[in-house]
């Protein structure tokens, strides 16, 4: 798997969708890279969170993932 190409495809997908939606299920990322194994995509997404390109949002029961800093909540939650 070409990691850099994968990361680029994920960021482009999220930017394209950013007007209508800011958070996605992990499964949505599998569709961005359909030729890759789901475990590899999962690892790539988690790596992108670690390098702070993406961020998790959690309700407690479900986790969603989006570009860091996007969405309504990001601004409000950064206020300490």
């Amino acid at each position, binding site marked *: 798997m070409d990691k850099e190409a994968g990361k680029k495809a994920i960021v482009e997908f999220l930017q394209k969708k950013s007007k209508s939606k800011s958070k996605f*299920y992990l499964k949505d990322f599998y569709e961005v890279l359909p030729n890759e194994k789901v475990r590899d995509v999962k690892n790539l997404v*988690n790596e992108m969170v670690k390098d702070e390109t993406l961020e998790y949002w*959690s309700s*407690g*029961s479900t*986790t969603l993932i989006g570009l860091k800093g996007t969405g309504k*909540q*990001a601004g*409000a*939650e950064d206020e300490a």
Partner: protein
Amino acid sequence: MAKHATPLLDQLESGPWPSFVSDIKQEAASRAKNVKGVDYQVPADACDDVLGIMELSYVHKRTHWKHGGIVGVFGYGGGVIGRYCDQPEMFPGVAHFHTIRVNQPGGKFYSTAYLNQLCDLWELRGSGLTNMHGSTGDIVFIGTTTPQLEEFFYELTHKIGQDLGGSGSNLRTPSDCIGEARCEYACYDTQALCYAMTQDYQDELHRPAFPYKFKFKFDGCPNCCVASIARSDMSFIGTWRDDIRIDQEAVKAYIGGEFKPNAGAHAGRDWGKFDIQKEVIDLCPTKCMWMDGGKLVIDNRECTRCMHCINVMPRALRIGEDKGLSILVGAKAPILDGAQMGSLLVPFIKVEEPYDEIKEVIENIWDWWMEEGKNRERLGELIKRQGFQKMLEVTGIDPMPQHVQEPRHNPYIFWREDEVPGGWQRDIKEFRKYHQR
């Protein structure tokens, strides 16, 4: 004097049972006094504001907590659940009130020194409110602010040697009964297996990996003290394949009243003389036991390991010696679809380190669920949607009689064409020789 008047909450203290309202008030009073001189890192009146916002929710009949959040600790995608209130001006003490799930020790064994360490840390860096324990088994710390998360996490991991638990679409904190440490019914070392799985699947525990939550629970025997059969996507329940060991002298002693049934657990009142027929034999779900000339006889082939007879007469009946575990899959509590109990997948497997056979079953199921599971679909729902047979295919387990709950009721296991000699194609002329149209 309480910061907020809480007449509706106060009613909850009037019943005969212990009240969480009293507990929160107690903690609020303790923080106000601050006898130990703690340098509270979250508002000292956080507990007062919890009571205030809860009272307001009771008045309005709707919540004032917002849904979820982006907070966490670096490198982890679980264990911290963002909680914010929508009335921060009125209740500044709970403007941020995040929940932290902490992995509980195996079998929930604590020393008081360890509990004190945990509580002292939470007094300092949180509200002091705890839930011991959440449904999954975690130590749940309720209420802290965003700046305290990393500080808390550092001290928890470096000073107390404990880790965060799971939340979100992760493997949830594996949970186990006390097992062989204290219990003679344990058929395997639950704590060893639970610890090994917790260590082996750290990535799945701390970072989202799945379509939804996934729970492991390890019960040493079918008494299911951690409710694995009802609550976990994959439950590991101790069992045995040989015979229940019978001490006929002890059976006589129970009948004669020398030993108290249920190890004296219900001895608080006089239930009358112990009646083995009424209290044990007639309650056997498979009617696999009877008295024969003063001796108790068990047809072990019919025994379903319900544990009732062993629980009632523990000095007379003991679990077998050829021990292992059964794996059941698909249980869940009723959040989306209804509640489901686990379905038996592996009737018996020996529990031997490094647990490769068990891990093979786990990972085959995960691969299938990660590929095919819909968003927020639990394993039990996927099994219902694609069929138990599909799960047998992905796990490479052959159908067996133990998979069938009731014969001829719902035969969900079908022959595939490649399993039938000649497949589905027939020579119609040959067929018509013997069967008229």
